[in-house]
């Protein structure tokens, strides 16, 4: 099933993507955003921290393509650099959370009954924390920083992944093909690796790709409550939050912070769904 060589996989992926316009759009969007943020340092027309109070909240002009914020800083440059924060927060947080979630979820779903109960209790405990209170406590204890924000998001996201993985694993566990493998004496690891993982990867991938915007949104929410990244670091969350405060003065911060967020969401969701279709073993070889 998974014996295809890497270059073969790549080629097949592209072949499949070409046939799926939404997936292709998603892929292009993701690439574009990655490019823009990675090269923000070269692309940004201004220093994102350069203050020019007398030119604050101006509309787009030749000098400032997306206008300026309440301190007269160039919004375009801040959006570009803010993308780095957004991507760092979401990619790091999601991959770590997904990794742990996958591991713990499969353990719970496939492991002994007592371990399952213990883990589920742990997931539910963490999930039941009111996010605001939890964030406040963590931030107060470790000091406000980008890493704290990432940490808060990881801890609150692990149980989401783990629960979904566990539910899927439980459902798979009694399926005929897994029972058959077991009867043939396959090790638990082998079963997890070759049968459970490919099967649960699909919903998980969707969840993860859709979590990119959720995480950026959470960062925005934390900034709204004053618990986001430390100023003057630009992030899409703080730009949106500024947009909320200064909506009447200028609509541009909300537009400038919101559009990349929508682009990221669309990009990752459709690209993710497309990938899932390509890699889902049950959908392989089917005429689309």
């Amino acid at each position, binding site marked *: 099933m998974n014996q295809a060589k890497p270059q073969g996989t790549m080629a097949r992926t592209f072949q499949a993507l070409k046939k799926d316009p939404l997936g292709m759009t998603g892929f292009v969007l993701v690439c574009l955003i990655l490019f823009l943020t990675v090269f923000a340092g070269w692309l940004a027309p201004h220093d994102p921290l350069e203050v020019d109070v007398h030119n604050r909240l101006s509309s787009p002009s030749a000098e400032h393509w997306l206008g300026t914020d309440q301190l007269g800083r160039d919004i375009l440059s801040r959006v570009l650099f803010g993308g780095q924060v957004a991507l760092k927060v979401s990619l790091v947080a999601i991959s770590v959370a997904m990794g742990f979630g996958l591991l713990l979820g499969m353990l719970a779903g496939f492991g002994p009954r007592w371990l399952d109960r213990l883990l589920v209790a742990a997931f539910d405990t963490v999930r039941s924390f009111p996010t605001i209170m939890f964030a406040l406590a963590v931030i107060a204890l470790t000091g*406000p920083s980008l890493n704290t924000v990432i940490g808060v998001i990881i801890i609150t996201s692990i149980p989401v992944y783990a629960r979904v993985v566990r539910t899927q694993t439980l459902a798979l566990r009694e399926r005929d093909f897994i029972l058959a493998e077991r009867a043939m004496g396959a090790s638990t690891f082998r079963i997890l690796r070759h049968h459970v993982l490919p099967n649960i990867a699909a919903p998980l991938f969707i969840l993860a790709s859709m979590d990119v915007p959720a995480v950026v949104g959470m960062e925005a929410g934390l900034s709204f409550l004053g618990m986001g990244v*430390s100023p003057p670091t630009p992030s899409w969350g703080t730009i949106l939050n500024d947009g909320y405060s200064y909506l009447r003065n200028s609509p541009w911060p909300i537009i400038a912070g919101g559009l990349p967020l929508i682009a990221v969401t669309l990009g990752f969701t459709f690209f993710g769904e497309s990938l899932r279709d390509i890699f889902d073993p049950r959908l392989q070889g089917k005429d689309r």
Partner: protein
Amino acid sequence: MTKYTCPPVFGCSRRDFLQSSSLALLGLAGSSWPRISGAGNDAVLHIRNYMDLSSLDPVSTISLAEGLVCMTIFQNLLSVRPGSHWETQLEAAEYFAQVSDTRYDFRLRPGQMFTHGYGEMTADDVKFSFERMVDPTMNSINAPEMGPFSHVEVHDRYSGTLVLHSPYSAFLTIAVAGVGGSILSRAAMMDVGGRFSTQPPCCCGPYQFRSWAAQRKTVLERNSDWNGPPAVFAEIHVYAMPDDKAGEMAFEAGQLDCAQISAEVVEPFEQAMPPDSNLHVLPSGRNFWLGMNQQNAALTDIRVRQAIQYAIDVEAVVEAAWFGLAATSNGPIPQGMLGHRPQALIPPRGDPEKARALLKAAGIALPLRLRLDCTTKARDVTAVQVMQWSLRQVGIEVSIRALEPGTFLTIGMEDRGDQWRDVQLFMQDFVGAADPYYSMTWFISEQIGKWNWERFSNAEFDRLYKLALKTSDTRAADRMYQRMQDLMEESGCYRFITNGVMPSIVRNSIKSAFRPDGYFLLREFRPADEPA
């Protein structure tokens, strides 16, 4: 500009002023009250309050949000007069005068009835209300505002004398005309066991309390038994709305008649004014400043602190964070108050050249790295980012640590371990009150490690502080308070930013009234069509 001009109000001594004003008002008290036109008779006023109430009992109110309601449903001997200077006017008293440094005589207007059948207000009620504020068993939150108040001597049914342990220049404005001076009915308070929270047992005044719903609103209604000047609104609905944006939207949606708004919307509102509305931009009495911990190793050299003072362009900070609406400040004491300093020693624009020279003279290796703590409030975060930018221009790299407000309040406190040593720069703001002593009280040496995080300590300052509190010579007090602010600035521990601003938007159908620090005086609100 001459340095020691006094605002006209303080041209005479406080005592003379009070007597003359009380006499002038005495004439009014006996005459018939002007009746308002029928048009406003069933009018309802909808107003935003910036937070919810937690208690209306004068011993346990915690904020001016509660003061707004208290001052509307209870009577005080004196009340704050609307306007731009702190003055008092007669309210429940028909006569009030200072007879010595520590004694104040009063006589109540007869016939002021408490609601719910608790009868007429007497001097004994005044005695009860004032003395419970300083009764140690009450653990009153507001006891400090009463200062050295001791007790009340009752002479007859209506008159008595307020007695202080020692002279207290802020007694009238802060204690008598403040929330702590609200007069409650002794009988009513006995019936509810001596305390209440959000359900007053009885009221006195043109408006009475009807209901309160947590996080929603407080409803006040016209007190039909009131025999004084009648309430002009049939009902007043006071909404608990902590978010400025929410308040602005609700006003625009036509659901509020009156709301405090944030500084940044003043300009857009001016350009596209909501129909039939008016903006009022008043100075506030707060004190915003950048503090420097002079005992932190990086800041022990006064030249470094001075360099920071000179490096910061206060005009740019105020322009950015207050949208240019607030004036730059010359110290904790705001304009319109005794002791206000007409000019700061260091120009608000600063002087980056001088800052660089000072750093060079101090032999500091640049870039100098410092930390600036502030709260996460949007306005503070904006302000410190401008400071950060100004400081960077002279070679000081500041990292900002924005802390949740509750956490921020602990950083300089000695009862929280040794973290106060690490405090370097911080942006702080304190609320002001009706008297200059209140704005200065946090900077005396006794406050080091409590609220004095700069650890500023100056013997002359401490001496003047005590002296000014006791003197009744306003000219002398004015000079003392100005000198104290010079001393603060000279220490290099402070860069004064602003006294803030309080913008409000009010429907044209309402004639609003404000305290000198921009807070609403609900009782003085009138429908606009009322004949003068």
